[in-house]
């Protein structure tokens, strides 16, 4: 299949295909032999492979996904290797450019909210809208306990019932849950 990719180049270089043989040269046979040695020496068909895997208790589509995963992984690794190999060159190029000076200055904002709603809304109105969208309940209570935990509370309200880590039972380690305290180190 791959040889087809070189077909156009070959014709451009050597002229019409009538004048020479389009067979693969004998120099390429060892490579093919190596692949053949690794195969099961049967005429290959995807049905056979599929049957073999089914006998072993695997789902054929999963095997395909795995092959895809491995292929993509090797591609990513190749890209990484290229990055590492050409690191010095790129740094040299970068240092001259404006982008580098922009990068070097540490004044960028890590995260930025975009596309705001055109008008402000109140917490109770927002509560209604997210309940309608996701079926979330108890939003006001959890927001107020969250604000209290982070000392962002400005007024007193009836829901000050101390902090509750809502999802702590989900995580193997009880102390481990998404960072909800002020992330000063980020």
């Amino acid at each position, binding site marked *: 299949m791959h040889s087809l990719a070189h077909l156009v180049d070959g014709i451009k270089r050597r002229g019409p295909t009538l004048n020479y043989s389009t067979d693969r040269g004998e120099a390429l046979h060892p490579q093919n032999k190596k692949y053949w040695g690794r195969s099961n020496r049967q005429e290959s068909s995807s049905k056979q492979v599929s049957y073999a895997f089914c006998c072993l208790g695997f789902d054929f589509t999963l095997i395909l996904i795995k092959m895809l995963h491995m292929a993509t*992984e090797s591609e*990513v690794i190749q890209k990484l290797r290229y990055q590492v190999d050409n690191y010095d060159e790129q740094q040299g190029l970068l240092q001259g450019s404006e982008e580098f000076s922009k990068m070097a200055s540490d004044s960028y904002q890590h995260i930025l909210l975009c596309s705001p709603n055109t008008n402000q*809304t109140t917490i109770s109105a927002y509560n209604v809208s997210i309940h309608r969208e996701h079926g979330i309940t108890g939003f006001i209570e959890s927001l107020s306990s969250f604000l209290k935990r982070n000392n962002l509370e400005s007024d007193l309200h009836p829901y000050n019932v101390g902090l509750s880590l809502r999802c702590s039972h*989900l995580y193997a380690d009880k102390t481990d849950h998404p960072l909800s305290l002020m992330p000063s180190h980020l």
Partner: protein
Amino acid sequence: MLTRQIIPYHSCRVTYDCQETGSKQTDLFRSTHSWRKEGPRYDSVLVQGQQRSSVFFARVLGLFSLSHHDKTYGLAILQPFIRKHRNKVTGYIELEEVSVEWYELCFIESIIRAVHILPPTPKNHRFIVQDLVDGDAYLRFIGIN
């Protein structure tokens, strides 16, 4: 409390240090009930856990900002995923959805980057993390097994 003013947002731009090249990369993720008038779109993100080495996958259900003493804080409503082991056959990280009532609130600063997560299929009921979309994702998730 109930009458406090907030501003809802529908998207968020996050800049992170790419582990592949060391440069800054920018991701844009969205959380909107009507994406180009074609229905809801709630993207997934990688969130910093409380311990330095721990990270979480979560879906962003809502984004909003509120002010306190002249300072504005961005908050996100997250629906965390439970992380399962990598699939032994396919090698992909698998996640399970939890009920929406176990949502979390967090500051948007703890969001590290956007993540591409495939929804479940009729055959496979788990979510799948696409860790090969770029070099940064590959290097970040290589330690997860």
